[in-house]
């Protein structure tokens, strides 16, 4: 006996079976009649997010420290604002590349390449997170209360130093501080500080480094 014939002979079981199917089908199947109904959620769009960032100092230096002399009291500061201008969040990291180490005849610009007593290996660098811009219109943090991101040798930030996860539209300010640590008075200074011993060996030197903010979706 086919299942169809069996159900035809036992209408109560047919009704039970149909009721079960109706329950399972929710609003889809109404009765044994050929009524049908359906709902739809049209126009579903699937678009990828956008991760982009703006840098307040793109193309310009975060800081330019000219005529540095030994001592933390002679530190030079600079700030940069990084914004996640995309539509999705992103994990931000910071990378550093030492671009040059040169002699400097004027305490400002670079000259011939320097192979020893490099300024990049002597400077001290501090990077602080001043926090996010806030309010409407957004106001920059004043950096009076910061979180240390990095505090160490100028040339050792590395290629992927962790920062934080930015939400869409989040903008943060970073404070950079550079100084030449005081190694004490050189023992035998000559007429010029350049090329002497101790800290004098670092006189008349130039360095530059590039800091890159990388972000990937989280």
């Amino acid at each position, binding site marked *: 006996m086919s299942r169809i014939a069996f159900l035809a002979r036992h209408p109560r079981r047919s009704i039970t079976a149909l009721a079960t199917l109706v329950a399972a089908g929710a609003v889809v*199947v109404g009765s044994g009649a050929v009524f049908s109904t359906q709902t739809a959620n049209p126009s579903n769009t699937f678009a990828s997010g956008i*991760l982009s960032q703006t840098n307040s100092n793109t193309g310009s230096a975060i800081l330019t420290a000219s005529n540095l002399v030994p001592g933390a009291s002679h530190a030079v500061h600079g700030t940069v604002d990084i914004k996640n201008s995309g539509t999705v969040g992103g994990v931000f990291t910071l990378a550093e590349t030492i*671009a040059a180490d040169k002699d400097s005849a004027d305490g400002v610009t670079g000259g011939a390449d320097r192979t020893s007593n490099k300024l990049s290996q002597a400077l001290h660098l501090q990077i602080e997170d001043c926090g996010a811009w806030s309010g409407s219109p957004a106001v920059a943090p004043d950096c009076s209360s910061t979180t240390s991101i990095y505090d160490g040798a100028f040339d050792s930030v590395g290629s992927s130093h962790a920062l934080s996860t930015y939400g869409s539209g989040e903008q943060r300010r970073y404070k950079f501080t550079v100084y030449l640590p005081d190694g004490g008075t050189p023992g035998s200074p000559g*007429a*010029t500080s*350049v090329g002497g011993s101790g800290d004098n060996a*670092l006189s008349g030197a130039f360095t*530059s480094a590039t800091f890159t903010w990388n972000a990937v*979706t989280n």
Partner: protein
Amino acid sequence: MNRQLRALTRGTRKWLLLACLAGLAAATNGVLFSGANLATRTSSPIMAASGILKMTNPGAGSAILSASGMKPGDTRSGTLSISNDGSVGGSYQLSANGLTDTPTSPSLSSTLSFSIDDITSGPATNLYTGTLAGFSQATLGSFTASQSRTYRFQLSWPSASANPALQGAQTSITFAWKANT
């Protein structure tokens, strides 16, 4: 009955299709692209250069003054200009060393009056007045980059100190200029 079942089957397929679409939509809501690695970057430089402290002493290696044949009542003087030709300012200091006297007692250096004045501009600024033997060092102050100052060194033999034992006496001293940032 077969027609009813076919209709039922069609309805079930549609329901399943809708269920699948709903599930796909839910999965797409912020999840579907999470495995992707959208990336972006920006860069900014830092430039730093250390300064240069450089002193120019045109009389380096030679005497500021040579006072030969002095006698009580005489005054001799010499001048010297010191420059900071570096790119940064420095704190300058003058010190004396290597004082020698012949004879050692009585010593000519203890008899001669000695003064150092800054005569760069305007009224002279006295830095030291005393005996030559009593001078050890003087603070000259800060020199800005490219600044130059002129100093006058003066020796006087007081007439009242005409000690015959100082005839033929000699004294010498070395002045050292030092600058720190």
